């Protein structure tokens, strides 16, 4: 019984941690983007170069973080790849002439600054980072 209880608690803590880790990342967009939410599938398509617009036809431009926990969490939660595999996918598009590499910025503040001032820009940051001047997209 004691083992069962410990096991249950361990799973609960792990699930709570996982939920907390995922909740740390928010998706932000330029205020000109009309959509208020985005599906996981559409988000994945945009950040892997498979699509360049939202279902409403609005053109969007993905903005990446260069590295870090938020970047890794975003890739894990929404793309299903690690950074190396993810960038290898983009390189396939770049070296076959099908796309340009998305802009990668150093930190959350730079992403917010860029997204706020560039039409159609869409990025991700930590939920605890200031994000005035951008809108937060709910991921469904």
């Amino acid at each position: 019984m004691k083992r069962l209880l410990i096991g249950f608690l361990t799973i609960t803590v792990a699930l709570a941690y996982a939920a907390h880790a995922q909740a740390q990342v928010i998706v932000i967009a330029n205020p000109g983007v009309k959509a208020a939410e985005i599906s996981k599938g559409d988000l994945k398509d945009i950040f892997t170069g498979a699509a360049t617009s939202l279902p409403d036809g609005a053109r969007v431009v993905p903005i990446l973080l260069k590295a870090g926990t938020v970047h890794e969490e975003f890739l894990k939660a929404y793309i299903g790849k690690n950074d190396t595999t993810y960038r290898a996918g983009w390189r396939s598009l770049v070296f076959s002439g099908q796309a340009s590499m998305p802009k990668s910025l150093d930190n959350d503040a730079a992403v917010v600054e860029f997204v706020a001032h560039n039409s159609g820009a869409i990025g991700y940051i930590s939920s605890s980072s200031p994000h005035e001047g951008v809108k937060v997209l709910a991921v469904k």
Partner: protein
Amino acid sequence: MKHWTITMFVAALAAVTGAAQSLDDLNIQIHGYATQGFVYTTSNNWNSMNSSDGSPAWTEAVFNVTAQPEPKLRVGTQVRYFLMGSEFGNAITLDWASGDYKVNDKFGVRFGKVKTPNGLFNDIQDIDTAFLWSLLPQGNYPITSRTSILAHYGGVVYGKLPLGKQAGKLEYQLYFGERVLPAGDGFFVPIIEGGAEMPNGLTGPTSGGTLRWYTPLNGLLLGVAWDREDLTGKFEVPGVFNGENIDAPFKIPYFFGKYENSKWMFASEYSRVPADHKTMVTSDIIPQAPPVGTILHNVIDHRTWYAMTSYKLTEKFTAGIYYSSYFDVKAPRVTYLDSTNYPHYWYNRFQKDWALSARYDVNQYIYVKGEQHFIDGMNFGFLDADNNSLSPTSKQTILKIGVNF
């Protein structure tokens, strides 16, 4: 077609630079990668390398520049240095140079010298950094013919159509233009080894298309493709006769599928090349040559397929295996016996290959690969000219290091 596409590309480049107010507006990006391979084979030398002693004669370097002055328009070019053994490459060639106008996700057009989007991997088969494998299945993606089948002069019309939440998406890519197979292409090696020459290679119209269905099952892709090649060129048997290649168009179907999740990847592809290579004798050099006007036939029917899987063991380490098969069902079982009664071309009818592969990504810029092949048959890369006598089976070890930026 070649001149027209280059003119279009230059016009697009001029439009791009004219539209931009500054270099920043052009959104210029520069990327590249380089790889160095080492090949060891147990018995036969491979692709003009002295590989039975171990050979590092496999080097590639790619330089890529793109500009995107506004969201719908992008221009770019890519050049490549390729060295394989003493016979292939050792030159800088133009991979592609194209303008791309993407109206929206449903419709876009690319023009210039463009990658040919047929089959599962054709337009990315050269991008070593994108693959676990050092050498893709050779029946489908022969490395010494890569430059010729990778790109063509002309255009591609492309787009992705949503089929509804329950049905996924359908991607189409239609291409047209001119294909150029230069005289040094790997396709001509058996012809040259047979004593003939194709001094200008083959040139002619190409067209085709690929449909990829991104199914509702996340990660599952199914596709079909169709390719038509209508190529002509000179065919000479030095000192005997001169001729002209008058092939009927090649019509090549492809069927493929791929499933990928965060750890696993499965892929398979089948294609078939049925053709009647026809050569018309245009002038005789010796009296014993076939009369002028004679049409010589060389009927082929290549069937190729592979199945592959890989698994990401850790964040940096991936391992995989594939089996590939190539078989020419129309090739004669024995074309000739050598002085030791060895039936050479029996093993040239097919090639079967088990490949075990591993890749370690040191970081996002550097990776190393190791690959072991167990090959039965000798159709791809095992040349009479490189070997005193060919063995019907080979083991091949490949080590590779790559950098990209």
